[in-house]
């Protein structure tokens, strides 16, 4: 490649060999990119976007856990979960829809989740466990008057009230929550951790259309969170891997 002066402009004279090299490099780049993309999509590692929503905000401090409040502990927990999940799964993006000092309007979390349309939405809650050992509850949103199934045809328009929108992904939410719960339940190290799996009108999940469930952790003190961390991460990974397989099959 030689630099030549032609009237007032400089231009580069590229030899045919250099041009061939550039074209080959370009094709290699494209091929490599395609191979990597297909390998990543076939890999069993969880990928996609999940929202981990901690309880409380500036107005609502939540329940007391030792000398702390639920809003602080849940934020601290989801930040640790985010770090752990993103380190173990490089193709997973974890979003925490709250920053310290923020005021959340009613249904703001649902609006955010519905616009972003993540693969999974998890609402995270804590309470002070006084009697027994620390434990974990899994909640799925459900109302009495809702239809058992919902099928939307591409040609038809469906109207759903805000507290009925969960039926769009009811089946997927149920499968993921159940998988998460079973993973925690069958964890060899923490057999007594899983306390129950319930379907109820759980307010923090109202209005969310994507697959969603809630985790409520009963802690004797805030340091006990470290015991539960690994099995919660395993549970989320199992649920996401199932979702990934389901999407691939479709």
């Amino acid at each position, binding site marked *: 490649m030689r630099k030549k002066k032609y009237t007032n402009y400089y231009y580069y004279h590229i030899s045919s060999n250099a041009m061939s090299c550039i074209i080959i490099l370009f094709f290699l780049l494209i091929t490599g990119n395609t191979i990597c993309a297909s390998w990543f999509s076939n890999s069993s590692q969880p990928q996609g976007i999940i929202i981990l929503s901690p309880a409380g905000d500036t107005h609502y401090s939540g329940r007391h856990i030792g000398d702390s409040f639920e809003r602080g502990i849940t934020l601290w927990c989801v930040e640790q979960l985010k770090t752990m999940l993103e380190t173990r799964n490089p193709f997973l993006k974890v979003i925490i829809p709250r920053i310290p000092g923020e005021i959340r309007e009613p249904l703001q979390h649902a609006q955010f989740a519905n616009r972003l349309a993540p693969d999974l939405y998890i609402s995270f809650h804590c309470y002070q466990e006084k009697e027994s050992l620390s434990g974990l509850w899994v909640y799925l949103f459900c109302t009495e008057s809702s239809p058992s199934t919902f099928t939307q045809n591409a040609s038809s328009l469906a109207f759903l009230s805000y507290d009925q929108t969960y039926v769009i992904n009811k089946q997927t939410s149920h499968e993921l929550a159940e998988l998460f719960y079973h993973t925690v339940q069958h964890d060899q190290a923490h057999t007594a951790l899983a306390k129950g799996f319930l379907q*109820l009108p759980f*307010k923090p999940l109202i209005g969310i259309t994507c697959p969603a469930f809630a985790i409520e952790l009963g802690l004797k003190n805030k340091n006990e969170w470290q015991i539960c961390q690994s099995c919660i991460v395993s549970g989320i990974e199992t649920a996401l891997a199932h979702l990934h397989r389901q999407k691939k099959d479709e």
Partner: protein
Amino acid sequence: MNNGNYIIIGGACLLVGTLFFFYQQGYIIFQRPITTSTLQEENSSISTRVKAVIYYWHQHKWHDEVIQFTSSAHPAEKIRHLTNQLLITLEQEQVMSKQANLETVALTHDKKQAILSFNRNPLDKQKSTFEKLMIIESILKTIRENNIPVQEILFLVHHQPLIDHELDFSNPWSLQGFLNKK
């Protein structure tokens, strides 16, 4: 017509006008006597001694207790007695930290829905969602097992919707509850 008659007619008009003004503004309310007698008839239905069972969740299992109270056959009255007795028991067993009372019970026109209004929130903010759910399930089970013919319950506090950060009470709850949902 002499001056005295003018004064009498003028005074009478002024009195009628003032009374009409007070009626319009709502200072004077006319009530037909027949309405009062109907209400009295409804309230004076025969009261009998009733035996019932209350159910509550305590220490990881269901408990039941037989109670007796004097009540009319009206379902709303029965619900009020049962729920208040249940709330007293829950407070005695320290399931609830502070006692709440049921202020009003009303049935909808079709008698399928009961509206329960408490004097304070019966759910402790510090409790877990499951513990709060079980207080509501205790109320539902008590009403259900005593064969009171209602299908749904709407929970209120001081005639306003019950506000809780975890459980949603904006819609009425089915008498079947949510424990057996699959």
